[in-house]
Every structure is written in C-alpha cells, then in structure tokens.
C-alpha cells in the first residue's frame, strides 16, 4: 500500500523541474598564477571608458562611446578599441590646445593599454585564464613602446609649443611616416 503524498512533495517536485544537473569539472592545467580573461576584458573597457571620460563633452559623445565600449567588451580584438582611439583623437583635436596637459599622457597610456590588452585577450573566451608570466614578458615590450611614445609626446609638445614653429618638421615627419607605412604594409602583405 503506497503512502499518501504529503503537501511538500508536489512543491519539491515543482522545484525540481528545470533543475540542471551539476556541471562537469574542468580539466586542471598547472600553469602559474593567473587572472581570468573576463577581468581583463573589464580592464580594457575601463581603460577605454576612462579615456572617453577625459575628452567627452556631450551626451552624444557618450552615446557613441557606449556602443563602441559594448563592442570592445564582446570583441576586444576587433575594430571597436581602434575606432574608439581614433574617436578620442578627433575629440582631442577639437579641444583647446594644451599639449602638456597631464591628460594627454594618461590617454597615451590608457589607450595603448586597452588596445594591446584587447589584442591579447580578444581570442580567449570569458572563462579562460591568463598566466601572470605572460604579462611579465609582454609588459617589457609595452613599457618600451610607452617610453618611446611618451618621450615623443613630450618632444612634440615642446616643438609645437615654440612660437617660431619649424615649418620643415611636419613635412619631414610626413615623409618618414609614409616610408614607415609603406614598409609595414608590405611586410604585413608578405606575412599574410
């Protein structure tokens, strides 16, 4: 003779509906100390958002920025971080001239960090892990580039701050830039 169902049994059965089986454990990889990829994506977005905050002057700017930030969050190695960097540059052009303002150096650091970190973690899924040693190795290259960029920024600020501007300097820089662009593009084409 079966026992009559208690009041709690149907409720418990209802609660059990849709209850998912426990997830399988993950394979263990004994790498060194690591940081989750989702956290690095947030760092990328935070660096980009901070950069926008330094130059945005209207809600329209923020509206466009939010769309691009969402793109950077989902595809950190996509177009969004680069486009956002160009956008920050455009906003900077329209801002009053102040080449030695500290925000310029912060922008150079934050945008470079966001773009390079995005390129590093972009292909990884959210739940991936990144070993700290990767940053130690990549960090040296990052700091070298930063040192060069910040120095050039300082030099450029000093040059543009001189009233008798040297008219041949932009021309020389444009030629050098063209040669560099041609070299890099040909190398990339060869690599592809």
């Amino acid at each position, binding site marked *: 003779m079966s026992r009559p169902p208690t009041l709690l049994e149907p409720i418990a*059965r209802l609660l*059990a*509906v849709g*209850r998912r*089986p*426990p997830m*399988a*454990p*993950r*394979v*263990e*990889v*004994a*790498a*060194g100390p690591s940081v989750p990829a989702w956290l690095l994506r947030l760092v990328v977005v935070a660096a980009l958002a901070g950069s926008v905050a330094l130059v945005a002057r209207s809600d329209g700017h923020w509206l466009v920025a939010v769309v691009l930030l969402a793109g950077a969050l989902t595809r950190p*190695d*996509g177009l969004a971080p*680069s486009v956002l*960097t*160009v956008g920050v*540059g455009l906003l*900077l*052009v329209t801002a009053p001239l*102040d*080449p030695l303002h500290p925000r*310029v150096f912060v*922008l*150079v650091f934050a*945008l*470079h960090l966001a*773009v*390079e970190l*995005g*390129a*590093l973690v*972009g292909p*990884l*899924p959210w*739940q991936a*892990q990144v070993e700290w*040693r*990767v940053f130690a*190795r*990549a960090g040296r*290259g*990052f700091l*070298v*580039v*930063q040192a*060069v*960029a910040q120095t050039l*920024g300082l030099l*450029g*600020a000093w040059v543009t701050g001189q009233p008798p501007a040297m008219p041949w300097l932009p021309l020389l*820089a444009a030629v050098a830039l063209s040669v*560099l662009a041609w070299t*890099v593009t040909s190398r*990339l084409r060869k*690599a*592809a």
Partner: protein
Amino acid sequence: MSSAASRVAVAGRWTPTGSALPRLFAGGGLLVLGLLAGRADVASLGVPLVLSVVLGLLRRPATDIEVQLGPPRYGTTEGRITSTLRIVGSGGGVAARLRVATPGFRDREVLVDASGPRDVDLSVVTVRTGRQHLFRVDHQCRGAHAVLRAPMDWVGPVSLVVLPKPALLGPVPLPHRLQGLTGSHRSVRPGDGGDFRDLAEFASGDRLRRIDWKATARRGTGHGTGVGTTTLFVRRTFATADAHVMLVLDARDEVGPDVAGWDFGRVLPDESTSLDLARRAGTSLARRYLDQGDRVGLAELGRSRWLRPAGGRRQLTQVVHHLALAEPQGEPAQKVAVPHLPSGVLVVMLSTFLDDVPVDLAVDWRFTGHRVLAIDVLPQPTLAHLDPRQVTAHRVVALERDERLASLAGAGVEVVRWEHAPDGARVEATLATLARTRRAGR
C-alpha cells in the same frame, strides 16, 4: 599508455592577428591627423599603436613550434591522471594559447608564457575505469605585441587503460558440479583428497600408506576367510576438484546514477557507471575464484571474443584487461550471439538488466543445468534532475526491470545486487549466504 607530439613546421606561416591592421590604420590615422592639425598630443596617441605593430613585425618568430604531450600517469589513491605538456620550442613566440579537452570534463583554456622551453602538467580526477582518452590540446603561439600568430594545431589525445580495483571477498558460490581431478574443493567421488569418506577392505591397487592400522586392529581380526587371518582396512577420502566459472559481461550499454543523463550517456567523472561496477565485480570475483585454485573464463555479450576458463595469475591479468577494455559498441543489440559455455560451469552474468536479452540467456542457461548468478550492476538511480514525465517514465522502466529480476529469481537464478560501497560488506554477506547453499541441489 601513449604519448603524442606535435610539430608545426611553419616558420614562414605566421600571419597577422585580426587586431594588427586596425591598430596600424588607427595609429597611422592619428599620426597624420596630428601632423596635419599641428597637434603633437593627437599624434602621440597614434605612436604606440604604430610602434607596437612595427616591433611585432620586426620580431617575427623564425623557428618551428614543437609541443609534446607525455604519457599519462595514474595515481591510484585519488584517481588522478596526469600528463605533462612540454613546449619545446615556441618559435620565438611570447605566449601560447592552450585549449585542453577531455571527454566528460569541461574544456580549460589558458594563455601561458611560451617564451622558453617549459612543462605544464595537465590533470583530471576520475573514478572511472577502462580505456580513457585524455587531453586533446589545441595550441596556438602568438608573437610579440599580439601582432603575429602561428597556425592552430593540436596534440593528443593520449590514452590510458585504468584497471578496476578488486574488492576482497569471502566465501563465494560454487557450481553445481565440480570438475577435474585436483583443486581446492571436495568432490563427491572417492579419490586422493583430504576429507575422510569411509573405510574399505584393502584391495589390489590400494597404497600401503592408506592402511588404517587402528581400524584393522579393531575390526580386521577374524573377519578373514580363515582362522587367524587378518583383513586390512584402508581409509578412503574424497577426491578434490576445481570449479569452472564463466563471467558473462553485458557491456552493450553503460549508464550512470543520474537518470537524466541516460539518454545522452552523460556521466560525471566522479560517478561510477554500470560498466565500472561490472568491471569491479568481475575483477573481484575472478580474483577470489583464481586465488582458491578455480578456473575462470570471460565472455562478452554481443562480442565474439572470449577467454576460456583457466587458472593462475596470468589468467587473472588477462581477465582484468578484458574487463577493462570492454565498452559499448553503438546501440545495444537486441540479438546477440550466445556465448558457448563449457558444461557444469557457474555462470556469473554481470548486467544492468535493462532489457530482456541477459534475462533470457540467464534463464536458458539455468534450464540447461548451470548454476547462474545474476549480478545487478545498475547504480543507485538519482531522479533529482528529472521532470515529472521523466520520473513517470523511469518508474515504468524500473517496474519492468524489477519484473525481470523477479522472473530470474523464479527461474532459479540467484540475484545479487552489487553495491557501490567501497568495503562491499553487503555483497560479501550475500555471496557468503549463497556459498552455503548445498551444491547438490542442484
């Protein structure tokens, strides 16, 4: 065990990452914009983007990538299987993206430093036995500043056969009829054994050392044909014999305790499946029978391969390996080739009894005179993740199964439920009870 190695001989096939060109164009655009506008602050935003891409291209990796996966190692205490991934040459890459996949486990993806040779241990913990295919590793090296990447390649998986661990068992049931002229069990025939059978008059062919002098002194004098003669009495003993046992493994299906996973065969690695229990039961029984000098064979339902009954340590090794390598082959077949059994064997059928095939075979063998032991290896089912309709369906399946087990018992097949308890105390008690059953009845 096996190891694997992957060598990507593609020093010339490093390609730009998806972010390289956008960075280059964005940086170049900012530089041009800054120059045109005479704004060094704008131009300096583009410098790091262009410079990092240029440096990444200049430090183009020149050598091949070589990744090796070592043979797996099994730790018997906690069931941990470990294999070492060796990144021998990263081709000048900075980081290696690894995606490690193992059936039954969720993938793990990591970005590790690959600037020099290094070893990375991969491991899983599992209670499963049998053949395991582990650690397929997809890998891709990336150059400095994430500008260039190597082609994606893979290494592995490696394979390992985890042997079932036997439980220590006490007395076990014997077949109705013992065979052979030697062994550890008492036969019903007179012969050279240890147990006393009866006294008999000395006859031609009896050995002198078998004469029982006390019995002769007590009963022999005056019983002869003439006065003063003495009749000699000899002690007769029971002959010994051995038991022949045939393990019949039903490896056509494999289910875990979670009924929600029965449809897709999803089982967590920390749960023993029916086949794991069957392997453990078969190994334990084979070891017990072989330890007491009996002969054990193995047949697999649905497969043509089988082991003839034989004794000794070598046979135990063979039986254990056959059990470990048994695995389902596609959908469970409804018509199976009937294994040929020697006469007078004890048949031990290891099955979940979720269909009629093993039941019909067991009943047929019982009717042909074999003693048949049905070992039920279905794990204790978990219904927590089923919806009400699935619970009802499982109830129907369970009722059908109960009916099959009842019909087995009605036909004289002895049913033993193999518990997952590590000490196996209940199983041992049940087997000991069956071992006390008189063989004669036969």
